[in-house]
């Protein structure tokens, strides 16, 4: 199991307030370069080696042995028991692309985005979810009390509460392996380099290059997803090159960290509470009948 407590920051992290490097904002005085994943789905062959490697290394329990009828995907989606999920989409290629309307398969290995503004981390009431010195987001399993708040807070449906265990789990970006100077298990095993690991800045440059390459080759449907630091989550630590719109792969087209609106939420609640006090006290005036 991952040992997640040893280097936990002393300050609680509020990703909402973070600008620039999230590990800086968390209060690490000296930390490592922010790392992440670039998942280039255009070269994914759907072998699911990443799913298997993740399960093996992290000791993640099975998620049931069902046939879903969803192409070759019998995993379904990310959860407390699935930290890498390979999606299989059978679709007709857009006429503009080389395929000219014929059936094609899209495959994509999904994972926790390790958001710059991470909703799961913001809403966690126990401080179990932390920002690591690598800029990633990790649950400390000895702290989590299974309140379940992180589960609906994540705009990507990544984190889940494990039944019978009661605690929340998700991808740790192989925190233990990173600290030992190793690659994350999924990136290590991926035979096509669809999953690339490295410093985020390098990955972004690599992704731009790959995008241009594909577009020059006439694949006009290629686009990056989650790499933009100006998006609703401040940019993902794990971003993607997709060949269709995000929702085709089960990804939200415009994810926003829910805590972005929190000042507005608290302000409205304060006005409502004040209104309740004023109304109730007013009811005590007037005739005593």
């Amino acid at each position: 199991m991952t040992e997640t407590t040893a280097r936990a920051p002393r300050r609680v992290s509020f990703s909402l307030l973070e600008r620039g490097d999230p590990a800086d904002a968390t209060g690490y005085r000296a930390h490592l370069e922010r790392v992440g994943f670039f998942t280039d789905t255009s070269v994914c062959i759907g072998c699911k080696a990443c799913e298997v490697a993740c399960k093996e290394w992290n000791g993640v329990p099975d998620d049931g042995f069902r046939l879903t009828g969803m192409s070759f995907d019998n995993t379904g989606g990310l959860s407390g028991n699935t930290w890498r999920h390979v999606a299989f989409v059978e679709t007709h290629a857009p006429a503009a692309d080389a395929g000219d309307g014929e059936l094609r398969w899209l495959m994509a290995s999904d994972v926790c985005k390790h958001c710059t503004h991470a909703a799961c981390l913001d809403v966690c009431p126990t401080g179990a979810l932390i920002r690591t010195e690598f800029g990633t987001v990790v649950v400390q399993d000895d702290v989590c009390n299974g309140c379940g708040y992180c589960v609906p807070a994540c705009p990507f449906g990544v984190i889940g509460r494990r039944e019978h265990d009661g605690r929340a789990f998700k991808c740790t970006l192989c925190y233990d392996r990173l600290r030992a100077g190793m690659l994350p298990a999924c990136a290590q095993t991926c035979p096509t380099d669809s999953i690339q690991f490295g410093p985020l800045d390098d990955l972004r440059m690599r992704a731009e290059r790959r995008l241009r390459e594909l577009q020059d080759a006439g694949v006009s449907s290629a686009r990056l997803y989650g790499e933009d630091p100006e998006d609703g989550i401040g940019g993902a630590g794990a971003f993607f090159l997709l060949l269709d719109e995000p929702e085709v792969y089960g990804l939200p087209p415009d994810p926003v960290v829910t805590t972005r609106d929190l000042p507005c939420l608290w302000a409205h609640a304060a006005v409502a509470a004040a209104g309740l006090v004023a109304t109730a006290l007013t009811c005590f005036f007037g005739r005593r009948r």
Partner: protein
Amino acid sequence: MVPEASFTSYYGRPVINAPVWRSPEVPGYLFLGGLAGTSSLLAAGAALTGRPGLRRGAALGAASAIGLSGVALVADLGRPERFANMLRVFKVTSPMSVGSWLLTAYGPAAGLAALADVAGILPRTRRAATLTAGALGPAIATYTAVLLADTAVPAWHEGHRELPFVFAGSAATAGAGLGLLVAARPENAPARRLALAGTICELVAANVMVHRLGLLAAPYRNGRAGRLMRQGEAFTLVGLAGSLLAGRSRTLGVLAGAALLGASACTRFGIFEAGMASARDPRDTVVPQRERLERRGLGDRAVASGTGAPGSDGAR
């Protein structure tokens, strides 16, 4: 059934993970927290204006409601034995953390106020506890709206401006209902007036919210949630009418009180179920986000952030 707005999803699977919170624990807590909060407010008002019957009944109701909800909240944790971890940190970004600290301050005050009142001891402590609970009560009654809205659940998050007012109205309705149950004329006059204010606020705020939600109104109108919301409205109207006549007869007062409590409970359970339904429906997540992107205008940026529609980036 399927509206015109076309959208794509991955085999119809939800985009976000639905809350793992159980019913009746969590919606029950939403209701009981509102009931307790407003009851403490009534008890404080009664203490300040010399209405001992209303004070005692409301304080006792508040303490029972918050005690019960404390049990429900701990039971809903995946690791109940670790409930104290809630107080490891204080985070304003986590409404659940704020709520835990609020409950830690409010619960003992409400308990002490009721205990001293029923036992007829420690009058000064009782007064202090009653007023403390009264001051914290409104926060207990409304913070839960922030708790729900601070998620990626579309029907909750997109209603974040109105939800606190729905909750405040629903809490006032519940507190007034309890007031009518425990206090007779003339002491129940404040509860009768509060019933009027609470029901109107609840009805108006809920309708404004659902109206403004547009596509996301569907989870509040259909299925189990829709039934609960409609039942809530019916109870509200009955309670409202009953409370207008409650000055005449004790029986009518009790009936109106019960209807008001039912109204508040239905609203809270309805809102909870609406959120669960909208979390499970990929359309509720995808379509509003698509519309947001379109309003912003597609272009290079949209492609860069992974949302470019083929056709808008020169693919034709």
